């Protein structure tokens, strides 16, 4: 085990996979000479050269399409989209092409493609640069969507994604890049489509992913000091969604709070809440609580920006709401 940052986990995995398989190549804007907008690809151009680490012009639709076509002929491109906001100009290629080619053509060709991109808001980046669109892709059959919260999962899921024969959308988070965690030194993968109970508890289940998992773990720690035992289910994959792990946890705790950074209506939390009421309705002691973004284009001003995004405090408030009934009964 070595303690590394989330960024280092991604960077080292990209290097290892480039080393392992000559069909793997990286493609994206400013990933080579510039070393990556968020330095995820730092040093890789120097190590592997311009054939394997390809600086692409600002033409997301074009180069995402190129990566899909190259994948159809057996290459394994790993595309970086600078932030998820910019993938909208390439969404036709992802949704109408990458996700459909294997199924629609009767399984004749595979699309072993990874698209890595940070999602969510941080640091007053304002309305066009702070969005969470992973639910748009998680909505689409044929894609796989993963969103690791820790360096361990970042490494294990990136390896799994690059070795997978389907298109995988790999969701990162600017706010997680500098977070640290222990990562095994040997080769391992984290399976796609499998959630993990990151912290066991018995009073309430919090379901989260990516940065919100980190928030949930901090909150769980704080509430433990108040005598509230929080179980944290980290989804890790949004598609496929590991419903059995969520349901098993809720059946145990009988209470659930679901949290995601995206907008409230039609967001990930809606899917989670629906899943829980469908499969664990009789086990619930209180309505599922949802914590999500306020439905505004994210404002720039510091306080407004912070108020619009879910926070540790909004999660704590939701946990108190979901526990309320029981506490009153006991009090």
């Amino acid at each position: 085990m070595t303690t590394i940052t989330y960024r280092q986990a991604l960077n080292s995995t990209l290097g290892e996979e480039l080393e392992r398989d000559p069909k793997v190549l990286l493609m994206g804007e400013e990933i080579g000479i510039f070393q990556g907008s968020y330095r995820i690809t730092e040093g890789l151009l120097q190590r592997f050269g311009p054939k394997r680490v390809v600086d692409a012009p600002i033409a997301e639709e074009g180069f995402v399409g190129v990566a899909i076509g190259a994948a159809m002929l057996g290459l394994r491109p790993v595309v970086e989209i600078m932030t998820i906001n910019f993938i909208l100009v390439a969404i036709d290629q992802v949704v109408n092409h990458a996700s459909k080619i294997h199924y629609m053509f009767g399984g004749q060709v595979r699309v072993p493609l990874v698209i890595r991109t940070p999602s969510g808001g941080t640091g007053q980046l304002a309305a066009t640069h702070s969005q969470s669109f992973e639910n748009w892709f998680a909505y689409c059959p044929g894609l796989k969507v993963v969103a690791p919260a820790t360096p361990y999962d970042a490494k294990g899921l990136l390896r799994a994604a690059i070795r997978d024969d389907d298109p995988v959308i790999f969701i990162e988070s600017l706010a997680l890049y500098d977070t640290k965690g222990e990562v095994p030194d040997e080769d391992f993968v984290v399976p796609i489509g499998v959630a993990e109970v990151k912290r066991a508890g018995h009073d309430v289940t919090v379901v989260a992913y990516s940065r919100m998992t980190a928030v949930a773990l901090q909150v769980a720690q704080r509430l433990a000091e108040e005598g509230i035992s929080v179980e944290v289910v980290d989804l890790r994959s949004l598609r496929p969604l590991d419903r059995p792990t969520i349901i098993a946890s809720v059946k145990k705790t009988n209470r659930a709070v679901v949290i995601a950074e995206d907008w409230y209506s039609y967001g990930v939390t809606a899917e989670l809440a629906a899943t829980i009421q469908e499969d664990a309705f009789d086990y619930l002691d209180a309505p599922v609580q949802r914590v999500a973004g306020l439905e505004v284009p994210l404002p720039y001003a510091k306080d407004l920006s912070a108020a619009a995004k879910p926070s540790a405090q909004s999660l704590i408030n939701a946990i108190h709401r979901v526990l309320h009934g029981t506490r009153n009964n006991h009090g």
Partner: protein
Amino acid sequence: MTKPALDNHTALSAAQVAELRHYYYQMVLMRRFEERTNEMYVKAKIGGYCHLNLGEEATIVGLMAALKPEDYIFTNYREHGYILARGVAPGPIMAELFGRETGVSGGRGGSMHLFDVSKGFMGGYAIVGGQVPLAVGAAYALRYQEQPGVVVAQMGDASTNIGAFYESLNLAKLWKCPVLFFIVNNGYGMGSTVEMGSSEPDLWKKGASFRVHGEQVDGTDVLAVRDAVRRLRDHAEATGEPAILDVVSFRFRGHSVIDADRYRDAEEVRQGREQHDPLRHYATWLQDHALADDAWFATLAEQVEREVQEAIDFANAGPDPKIEDIFTYMYASPVPNTPGPEAARRLL
């Protein structure tokens, strides 16, 4: 392009004669296949959208005649003729139109999504322009792996107005991808003329600001198309330079089977069919060069009639895909927590 010198046709080898006749066979096969497809659509054997290649036979056969087995082809949704001329049997193509398990895409794709990887036919695509970056990517992969071959990005005239085309031109030139942008200029995108949609109606010029060479060819002339493609193809393969070929052809009918074509002047259509019928042109040419006589044409017509009927019989006989198999092909790499045969059986 100059045609083979046929003043003294005894100079042609038997193989050359056979090849020249084969083009005609393919054109007639395509014509009858499409006419019968129209009929099958009216009989409700075929559903969805269905776009025919009637009038584009020389354009397609000329293209395929110049391509090599190592080449790849990506097309739009008007592609029945392309996969036929690439040498895929008519039966599985018709079966796909019928939505059968025995179809080229297992009944999962339909008329607009034909595919046969074994022939390098990499699909019909129904989002205008969507196939173009994919074709550049395939060419990128050829170059990356130092493989021979080129990739054809077939597209319509109206598709030259979408952004994906321009990003593709730029990337293909920048990254030295051997792609032939093969623009089937049938004068219309649905009901809109080229002039209505393109500020530069000379489509072959559209590569100018990307330094991509372009030229135009008469899509009614199978040999002219073949020779132009051959030259551009070989150049692309040798140098990695992409090129545009603007192939002028005439759409015999409406945009799709269900389009009554009311926006076109009846006289324009009548004249177009008369003057730009690739079959008539080429039949005359073959006769003028004493490469075929009436008996040969008659025998061929009978043979094609039979083959298309056999394709329809094959399609009719094929089983429909089973409901239990609705999730088959969802993912190439198995993944937990995704519906499989169990979930499919619950649908029954």
